[in-house]
């Protein structure tokens, strides 16, 4: 909302600098985003009067006006067509800063000789002054402009650019802001005086108003002005409209816009002669009804949109836009002026669905009061009579089915203190509310005030609203800062967050960089992880209104977006990359919100180390990935196991399913070469994904302390030869089954020339220990023999010679 200071001053005395006013408005809820100073650069420009116009001796298209500026007459060279003796104009002396009419750049006016004639300055166009784009004619000022006065004093202004919050439609107008300024600067509001002559027969003999759908139209008022001459509105009005960002059209339309900007009530002018049956009917659109709106577009109306109709057809889309069939044109002489009130939700719906956001729409959808129609209608009628001539019919039409008496509300000092934490007196409360236009009366007790909101305020419905008014006008700075004094509420342990924290810290400790990727992904990306089936199943949840194809589906896995992050980094990273994300995936469910488990996904690829003089450490592989999870599970005290997996995203034999107590909670493996190829990667990528939500129950509680062994351990190494099909896991499961075995570690795995075909060799270091005594060789030998026997019996293992 743009509010020119001069306009504001018509309704309130402003004695403070604009910056201070802007700051106070900002603090009280209406943010001033900036102040635009019109004429701030108009040094050396004054109001002049054309005293004479002589021809240029050397050029037909140029003339030599003599300009009276109160001191010495100035003669300039000018090419504009509208040089008339007696006109008041803007005269720029040498040194003035003007906008070049052709290049648009700001330049300082220099002394110039044009075609042999000295020009002592310039008569300015609107463009040169930065008022508008008009450069074909010079600016002609109103006849009462005082000659010799600096133009900045006469025409300059400061325009506040205000951000009005959606609850304050009353602030979408100059008088509304004036009311706020009055309240925050301790001044009084002077509303405009409205008076005009009425004549002839009463209005109801000219027009009837019927509201059929009163739920959408609480009030409809109209006046009639006959004998109007359509023309341009006066410069002062045009300038104000322009300053507020509206384009002048003609005197009648300009008045409706002007009054909307002044009082906040949208108005609409019909050509009265085009209203058929001389009746206004406010009703919902009928099925298939269309209307050509003022912008020339044909609009299809839905049955829940409200129209203003005559007896035959719709003549306007209520509150949104007028119809072309009843438009005010140059030939119009009788104006039917509408000031009505419409249901905010209905207007919002219509404006959105027809894609017609307008100034009127914006005000109606925020909910303005029906009481506002009458003052605005009268003000606009007065201005039309004043500017367009004509005669106002006697009275105004007023259909008001939604009339409700304003109800006073009670605000108590007690409740105010309870909510704000600071005491305000009845006097302070009364003063604030009165300054905002509230009617205040003493309440039932000495600590209460009975307040009735002014007719323009639609946002005050209960006591807290009144308390906010008091707080914001006195200022939030007057509320102290205290700490919560109540006892701290009971807190349940945040197990999930603790687990997430532990996982993140562990991964970071292992050298993984945390990534955060978008929750949305595309089906195409997900399909790349399905090299066999090409099917994404089950289907992920889809957005009804995706912004882009890349962000159409809620991710059912973290893999896709994380791998994309790796790919993007691979363009500039040559060494190993270790990335992880811990976040939600979204799994659709019938009749319920999607399941949103927390998932950990990690991936690693490339060289194990950065390049180094100590060697590069080789390439990252499956066992680097597995080590991360093993380390994580150890840290969490979770007994996870790895079993061959069957996820089609992975290399068929280089993958494992991760299970805890037979419950599968994740996968790990080398991505299928087809998957990496689909992402334009030539390297092997190792990825793991873990359902952290399912992991959580296994991490509950903690294990008890185990005493440190008091008796020495004994260590034995064995090398076994087994079929290649026998797994390490099978071997250690057997070894661990013996009671004195404290630990077992594999330290060599070999298959090749040294062992028979179809066999492999594994070497283990077994640690024996007893909690009760020092072991003897004999004891250990006995156990080791039993171990070997069992390995031989169950797995066909033999000792390597």
């Amino acid at each position, binding site marked *: 909302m743009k509010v020119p200071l001069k306009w504001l001053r018509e309704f309130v005395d402003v004695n403070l600098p604009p910056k201070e006013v802007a700051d106070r408005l900002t603090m009280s809820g209406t943010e001033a985003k900036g102040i635009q100073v019109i004429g701030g650069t108009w040094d050396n420009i004054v109001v002049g009067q054309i005293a004479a116009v002589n021809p240029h001796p050397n050029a037909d298209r140029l003339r030599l006006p003599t300009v009276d500026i109160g001191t010495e007459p100035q003669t300039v060279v000018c090419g504009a067509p509208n040089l008339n003796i007696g006109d008041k104009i803007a005269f720029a002396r040498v040194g003035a800063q003007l906008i070049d009419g052709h290049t648009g750049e700001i330049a300082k006016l220099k002394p110039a000789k044009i075609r042999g004639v000295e020009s002592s300055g310039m008569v300015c166009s609107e463009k040169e002054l930065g008022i508008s784009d008009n450069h074909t004619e010079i600016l002609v000022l109103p006849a009462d402009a005082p000659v010799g006065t600096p133009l900045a004093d006469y025409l300059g202004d400061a325009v506040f650019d205000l951000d009005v919050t959606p609850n304050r439609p009353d602030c979408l107008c100059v008088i509304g802001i004036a009311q706020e300024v009055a309240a925050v600067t301790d001044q009084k509001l002077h509303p405009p005086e409205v008076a005009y002559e009425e004549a002839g027969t009463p209005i109801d003999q000219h027009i009837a108003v019927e509201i059929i759908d009163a739920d959408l139209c609480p009030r409809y008022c109209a006046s009639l002005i006959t004998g109007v001459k359509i023309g341009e509105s006066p410069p002062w009005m045009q300038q104000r409209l322009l300053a507020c960002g509206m384009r002048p059209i003609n005197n009648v339309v300009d008045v409706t816009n002007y009054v909307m900007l002044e009082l906040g009530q949208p108005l609409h002018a019909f050509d009265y002669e085009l209203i058929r049956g001389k009746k206004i009917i406010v009703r919902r659109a009928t099925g298939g009804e269309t209307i050509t709106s003022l912008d020339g577009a044909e609009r299809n109306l839905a049955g829940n949109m409200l129209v203003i109709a005559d007896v035959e057809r719709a003549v306007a889309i209520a509150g949104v836009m007028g119809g072309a069939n009843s438009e005010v044109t140059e030939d119009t002489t009788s104006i039917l002026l509408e000031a009505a009130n419409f249901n905010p939700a209905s207007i919002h719906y219509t404006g959105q669905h027809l894609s017609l956001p307008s100034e009127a729409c914006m005000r109606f959808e925020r909910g303005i009061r029906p009481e506002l129609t009458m003052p605005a209608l009268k003000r606009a009628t007065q201005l039309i009579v004043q500017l367009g001539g004509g005669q106002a019919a006697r009275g105004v039409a007023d259909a008001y089915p939604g009339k409700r008496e304003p109800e006073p509300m009670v605000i108590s000092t007690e409740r105010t203190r309870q909510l704000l934490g600071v005491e305000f007196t009845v006097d302070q409360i009364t003063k604030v509310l009165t300054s905002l236009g509230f009617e205040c009366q003493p309440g039932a007790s000495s600590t209460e005030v009975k307040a009735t909101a002014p007719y323009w305020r639609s946002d005050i419905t209960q006591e807290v609203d009144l308390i906010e008014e008091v707080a914001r006008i006195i200022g939030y700075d007057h*509320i102290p800062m205290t700490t919560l004094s109540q006892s701290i509420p009971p807190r349940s342990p945040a197990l999930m967050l603790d687990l997430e924290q532990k996982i993140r810290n562990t991964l970071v400790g292992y050298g993984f960089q945390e990534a955060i990727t978008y929750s949305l992904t595309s089906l195409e990306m997900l399909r790349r992880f399905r090299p066999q089936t090409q099917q994404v199943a089950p289907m992920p949840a889809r957005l009804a209104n995706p912004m882009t194809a890349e962000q159409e589906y809620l991710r059912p896995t973290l893999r896709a977006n994380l791998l994309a992050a790796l790919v993007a980094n691979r363009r500039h990273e040559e060494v190993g990359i270790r990335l992880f994300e811990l976040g939600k995936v979204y799994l659709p469910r019938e009749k319920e*919100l999607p399941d949103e488990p927390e998932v950990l996904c990690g991936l690693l690829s490339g060289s194990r180390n950065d390049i180094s*003089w100590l060697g590069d450490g080789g390439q990252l592989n499956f066992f680097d990935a597995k080590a991360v999870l093993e380390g994580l599970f150890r840290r969490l005290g979770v007994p996870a196991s790895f079993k061959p997996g069957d996820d089609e995203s992975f290399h068929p034999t280089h993958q494992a399913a991760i299970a805890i107590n037979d419950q599968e909670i994740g996968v790990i493996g080398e991505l299928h070469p087809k998957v990496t190829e689909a992402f334009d990667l030539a390297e092997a990528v190792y990825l793991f994904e873990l359902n952290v939500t399912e992991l959580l129950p296994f991490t509950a509680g903690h294990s008890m302390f185990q005493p440190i062994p008091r008796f020495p351990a004994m260590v034995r190494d064995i090398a076994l030869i087994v079929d290649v099909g026998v797994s390490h896991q099978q071997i250690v499961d057997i070894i661990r089954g013996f009671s004195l075995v404290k630990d077992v570690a594999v330290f060599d795995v070999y298959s090749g020339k040294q062992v028979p075909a179809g066999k492999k060799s594994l070497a283990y270091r077994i640690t024996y220990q007893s909690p009760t005594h020092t072991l003897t060789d004999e004891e250990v030998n006995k156990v080791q023999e039993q171990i070997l026997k069992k390995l031989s019996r169950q797995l066909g293992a033999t000792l390597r010679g």
Partner: protein
Amino acid sequence: MIQQLDELKTKALQELGQIQDGKELESWRVRYLGKKSSLTSILRSLATLPLEERKSAGARANQVKADLESELQEKEPALREARLVSGTQKEILDISLPGRPLPNGRLHPITQTLNEILNIFVSMGFQIAEGSDVERDYYNFEALNIPAEHPSRDTLSTCWLEPETGSDEHTMLLRTHTTAVTARVIEKMKPPIRVIEPGRVYRYEATDATHLPMFYQIDGLAVDKGITMADLKGTLYEFARNFFGEERKVRFRCDYFPFVEPGVEMAIECLTCNGKGCRLCGYSGWIEILGAGMTHPEVLRRGGIDPEEYSSFAFGIGIERLPMLRYGIDDIRLFYGNDLRFLRQF
């Protein structure tokens, strides 16, 4: 015999003087003092000598042995000292060479920021609560006093999920603010309540340097008897000074959010210009940090809490802005681009 002993001693001492390391010293000891040394065999052969000669030779032999042993004892520490010192002088290390590389991981700057903020509020007695990213229309809007066709919805442009099967009504959405969690908490928990609600939120918005379709917020809520706006100001100030530092000025002004009344906006003095006004702060000198207010009675009522008995404050903080301000990051898209060259800086 005695002469033999003296020669032996002279030779031994001479050899001892030239010994450089422990190994040589050991072989010297074996040679002269060991079981097979000539001194030992001399001592053994004494038995064959006549008594008189045996006495004097024996005394001399023992004397030689004692002398050699004491010389050896003196030599040993000198030798150890020499060994330790020479060991440190032999190998010169180029300490300017880099160490063995270790992979380096970091938390994402947004995680770091979330942790920092959550810790501040947890220390004030707040409990962390989480909601779901996909929400019902009701909790995102109606429960928060934002009815359908309300203009406030226009600034919360919404990503809707496709209707559930058998329906053509959009009822599920990606929450536009974590205030939806507040609506859930009010409905589910009983006062006293102090919760802090971090999470992802979504807007139907085109991506540019200052806008993302997905970002993070933290909402907070306190409900109890006697909670005031002064408490709200104090709580938010505590957060601000912990996060931005004691010196940073804080401003509270009136603002509007449908779910609070009175509504508050908290701004801090611009970090770039320190309040003088610059492009970053729109020449106002202030940077808006969060929205807050006293929870609207209607919102409490809908969640089953009596606003006559309890009062409440609520606030919501946008997260990305905070590291952007602190580190001077000028493009919000960097956060979720996951470029390692960006992430490694935090």
